[in-house]
């Protein structure tokens, strides 16, 4: 039990951010119309591409050739996620816009 309490104290800032973000995520999208389900999924898909920052950090501090290569791959994969995700979403939403005219 003491271990758990210690853990909480050590990471309290992040645990706060996580907890509040959970509620925020729920609140932010809870009134989305069905029409936007696909673009929203695609857009949030792009946002979790933020994992690329981790890949950049790993690659930027790589000490061996192997970790450099793996990091290189990770950065490519992360970029695919980010760029592909945002471009695909934009293409979908562009069509919504067009029909408004």
């Amino acid at each position, binding site marked *: 039990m003491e*271990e758990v309490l210690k853990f909480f104290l050590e*990471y309290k800032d*992040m645990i706060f*951010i*996580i907890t509040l*973000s*959970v509620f925020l*995520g729920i609140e*932010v*999208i809870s*009134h989305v*119309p069905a*029409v*936007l*389900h696909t*673009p*929203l*999924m*695609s*857009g*949030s*898909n*792009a*946002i*979790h*591409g*933020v*994992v690329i*920052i*981790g*890949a*950049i*950090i790993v*690659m*930027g*501090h*790589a000490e061996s050739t192997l970790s450099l290569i793996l*990091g*290189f*791959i*990770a*950065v*490519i*994969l*992360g*970029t*695919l*996620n980010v*760029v*592909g995700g*945002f*471009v*695909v979403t*934009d*293409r*979908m939403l562009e*069509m*919504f816009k*067009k*029909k408004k005219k």
Partner: protein
Amino acid sequence: METIQTFTSELSILEISYLVASVLFILGLKKLSHPATARAGNLWAAAGMAAAILFTILFHQKEGQPIGNIIWIVVALAIGSFIGWYASIKVKMTAMPQMVSIFNGMGGACAALISLMEFPKMQNMLAAEGVGNMLGGEGIAILLGLMIGGVSFAGSMIAFGKLDGRIGDIKHPVLRIVNLTFLVVLLVALFVILFMEPVAGNNLPIYLFAIAALIYGVTFVMPIGGADMPVVISLLNSFTGVAAAMGGFLYGNQAMLTGGILVGSSGTILTILMCKAMNRSLMNVIIGAFGVAGAAGTEAEDKTVKEISLSDAAVLLSYSQKIYIVPGYGLAVAQAQHLCHELDNLLAGKGVEVKYAIHPVAGRMPGHMNVLLAEADVPYEKLVEMEDANNEMGNTDVVIVIGANDVVNPAAEDDPSSPIYGMPIIKALDAKNVIVMKRSMAAGYAAIPNNLFYHPKNRMLFGDAKATLQKLVAEIKSL
């Protein structure tokens, strides 16, 4: 973990950029959930991402060391951007769900790779310090990131294969047990590794753990029916979000943490909303009641189907007052959405009121059909959501069902043994006449027989959606 950092203005700017990125993610998501602001929302989130990436490269420091290998990082970013951009502008709108699934898998793989690289580092460090186990925030974040990222990657690839028709469904009941066993094995392995004594260079357990996660990803998605893939992709999307957040936890990186958790929680809610649109529970989708009970509805035999000729159809449509078109994935696959719009223009010119009844799950993903019709320039006002359309069915002369099947299947209302029982449908039979355009009498994507086809009100117009629409348009023009 996060050591107390001495002040430098670079570090401060970096953290400010993460704060800005987090706010942009939140505002982006918020805007993405309203039709009028959605596109701007996407761009806002993208701007936040760009800022976070740029400032990380410029100002990130680890133990006083700035980011190295910058040239290689930029090369990797360029390669990824080019492929991602090129694939996104080339992909057909009908194949959009597959594309989203692939990109999601890439994110999952990225998270898993990060964990795979960080684990040996952590283990070596703890071994050098003589710590007895790997229990701690860092170890938990690395292992969870690897597990969730791996499952998301493998699962997304299978989901892609299914949507693309490359992988069939395997619905053996044994798979469910295999599935559950693997999940238990994974969780047990997670704890075993955490309690292991760190030995420098002892990386076999983590590799085995990664492989197990990949296998679980496959067995998790394999038994789920192809028709449920959108829900699965949405779920895996939120998984990847959580995996990204684990990376944020590991590095004490707020942008990754907020971005990841936001997607994790909003993705979960979105998944549940999608299930609701189909009137099913998430458990029901995952465990896969779909298809298993599908064989039960066999009443459709020895009933007759009435056909309608092109000229009869043309006359019927031209002299109607009000028509509803119910589009389905078949329309999209045949690339007939433009012809469909031509038909509705033509009829509108004759004074017929034409509207589209859009089922929330028409197409391969919720909202997919709206995107496809928008691509064909069908005006927004003509797209009517299911509930409103159903209210108007009573005074509708003809309902034309094009390439849709399950979303108009009356079994959802009157056959409790049907796997789609309880799913809201478009009540085509409330209209005076129904015309179903279909290639053959084959059952729909969910492989459930449809009694609508045999109903006295309904007449079939067999053939490829595109060819048939072409002929129909020509026929109406010549009237």
